[in-house]
């Protein structure tokens, strides 16, 4: 029963999230009431395509390419789903290309610039908006809505992927946010029954966990929190800022925070490091992902990861010792403070403007999002689905389970809004530089806060 309720609320959360994010709406965390999104969530999905009724490319042979990033399980699942499609439509050949997430954006931008991109691309939410500086660089999916059933998504969710020029750049697969994955044994060793609820408690735990750490990580250090990459600190920082002030990073191209508000968060990050709760910049060596030995050897304490990545990070923890892991929300900045989780559409799928067979591509997408057999193969390997048919099947077959389900629960109960610009490289790169400068000690919290506001503002100004 719980699963059923979960999926329904997932869909509701999606619409809430979106309606709260319209530019004019000044949303306070956790204040938005359950929006009147009346999308019928649990209606059985209509069979999307009946073979014979409409044949892609009029039954003539065609070859298309699809690309995605991810880890092995996703590759295997998607390849199997594509094979299924080719069995069903033998005259269509689908080539595929895939790789790891890091570097994927670089590669895709090069393909777009060179006009050699695949017909179907897995894309990140931010890319839909960033690559074209607000205008759509992909095929407007409204033009293939005869083949791709857009009613699978709530209008609000589609709105996320709609660029400033009114085109639908991609269809979203789901909604995601980051949650804490923690080591239960670390808590037990320090006589805690639950994960710290505030940063002060987290820091306190951190200073006892890190007793005996060496200056550099020589393979023995332990931490209460280990960021698995620069993105971790970025999302954490913005979420803390949001929860502490009720203000998003930017609105209508204006930074909203004061230097004091930003400095306070920098100071907390500083205390996290000083106490040893979190590694210093120098203690944190590559690889900056879940293959980092500190995390793999169970010395990291906790990580802050996308809900969709829980099994990926968990799989590398002590050789997949999932029983040792728990899921929690990011602690509050102050006792009783907001604990909203900043959320955004997880990955989406776009079609190339230069595709020779846009309708075939749309048809394949529709298949991947609506065909029951395909959806069962894909299961949770693309994350938690939010489109109607996929969500209904996920619910029916209890596809979302365990830690991931706990993560989804947290997302739903603590929905927060992420600025659509937060992952834009033009804004993100300066933030990364400031975090790095602060963490290496070359600037103090005050300077960091000033630079944060002024550099983000000038990046915003340059965008218009």
């Amino acid at each position: 029963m719980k699963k059923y309720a979960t999926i329904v609320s997932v869909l509701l959360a999606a619409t809430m999230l979106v309606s709260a994010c319209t530019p004019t709406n000044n949303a306070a965390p956790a204040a938005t009431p359950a929006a009147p999104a009346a999308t019928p969530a649990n209606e059985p999905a209509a069979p999307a395509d009946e073979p014979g009724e409409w044949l892609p490319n009029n039954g003539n042979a065609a070859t298309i390419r699809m690309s995605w990033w991810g880890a092995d399980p996703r590759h295997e699942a998607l390849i199997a789903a594509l094979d299924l499609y080719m069995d069903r439509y033998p005259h269509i050949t689908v080539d595929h290309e895939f790789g790891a997430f890091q570097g994927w954006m670089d590669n895709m931008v090069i393909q777009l610039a060179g006009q050699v991109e695949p017909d179907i691309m897995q894309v990140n939410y931010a890319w839909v908006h960033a690559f074209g500086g607000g205008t759509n660089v992909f095929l407007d999916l409204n033009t293939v809505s005869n083949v791709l059933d857009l009613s699978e998504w709530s209008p609000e969710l589609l709105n996320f992927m709609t660029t400033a020029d009114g085109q639908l750049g991609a269809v979203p697969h789901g909604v995601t946010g980051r949650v804490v994955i923690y080591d239960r044994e670390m808590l037990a060793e320090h006589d805690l029954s639950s994960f710290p609820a505030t940063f002060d408690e987290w820091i306190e735990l951190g200073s006892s966990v890190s007793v005996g750490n060496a200056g550099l990580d020589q393979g023995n250090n332990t931490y209460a929190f280990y960021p698995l990459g620069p993105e971790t600190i970025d999302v954490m920082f913005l979420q803390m800022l949001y929860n502490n002030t009720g203000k998003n990073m930017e609105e209508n191209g204006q930074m909203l925070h004061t230097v004091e508000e930003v400095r306070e968060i920098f100071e907390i990050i500083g205390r996290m490091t000083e106490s040893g709760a979190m590694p210093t910049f120098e203690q944190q060596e590559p690889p900056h992902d879940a293959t980092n030995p500190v995390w793999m050897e169970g010395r990291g304490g906790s990580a802050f990861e996308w809900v969709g990545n829980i099994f990926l990070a968990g799989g590398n923890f002590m050789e997949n010792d999932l029983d040792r892991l728990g899921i929690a929300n990011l602690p509050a900045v102050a006792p009783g403070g907001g604990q909203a989780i900043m959320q955004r559409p997880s990955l989406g799928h776009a079609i190339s403007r230069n595709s020779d067979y846009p309708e075939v591509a749309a048809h394949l997408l529709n298949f991947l999002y609506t065909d029951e057999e395909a959806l069962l193969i894909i299961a949770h390997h693309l994350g938690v689905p939010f489109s109607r048919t996929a969500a209904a099947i996920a619910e029916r077959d209890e596809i979302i389970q365990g830690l991931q389900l706990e993560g989804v629960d947290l997302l739903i109960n603590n929905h927060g809004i992420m600025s659509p610009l937060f992952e834009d490289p033009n804004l993100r790169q300066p933030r990364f530089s400031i975090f790095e400068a602060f963490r290496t000690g070359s600037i103090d919290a005050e300077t960091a806060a000033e630079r944060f506001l002024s550099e983000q503002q000038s990046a915003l100004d340059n965008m218009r």
Partner: protein
Amino acid sequence: MSTKNKINAVVRYTLLIAVGLLLAYPLFWMIGSAFKHNADIFGNLNILPPPGRGTTEYFAAAWQLSPRNTMAFYYWNTLQFLIPRVIGTVISCTLTAYAIARFSFPGKKIVFTIVIVTLLMPELAFRIPIFMLYRDIGLLDTFAALYIQEFFAVGSFFVFMIIQFMRTIPRELDESAQIDGCGPLRTLIFILVPILRPIIITVGLLTFMWGMNDFQGPLIFLSSPENRVLALALRGLLQDYDVTNFGQIFAAAFMALIPTLAIFFTCSKFFVESVTSSGGKE
């Protein structure tokens, strides 16, 4: 030999051997670590794994360099641009060097100056317009993008190297050939090329080995995983969620260097000599 000289010799040999060990250590450490588990790699200087703890399991994992493709696939992709690149470089640079070194003609000084100036210019300076050029003629994401220009003697360094070598060949040789009725091309092929053999082989080998190291070119011009070459696939190891053993990284690095090392040691005689002579005469 006096005692003093003997001491001097001992000092020199010690120094040379010490430097040699220092230079070789990273490579031996890499090879040794490919046979180790994570726990045995760091915190000590040992090259060999602890007794009884060595393993070859990471070679199999490293051979499967990406989820779908083995190292063989990436070697093959690399060769697909390297072999044409070697052929193009050797032929076009020899022709160009021949024209410059063996003929006097108006504008020769300008030609040579351009060769030297382009020698000083970084490849990156040309990359943006060439990217657009290749896009317009459909060469992006093909191996041709990585070798087509080498057929047009853009490798100024090699042109320069061959010129230097040709200068050491007496001109009387080709003059007498011409008197015997050989045209310029026949003179080049039948008289000069046999003598140029060591430098031509060197140019070919250097093109090959530098090509193995080429990373920026593939990064820009090859974008689909189907066309990924070894350098890009190796970099993928740094980013792969599924690579959790350092042994695997070392094994992959080792295997990636084997072709270069093998070629180097079989032909080292050739090009240690040739490289030595390339800069010798200014």
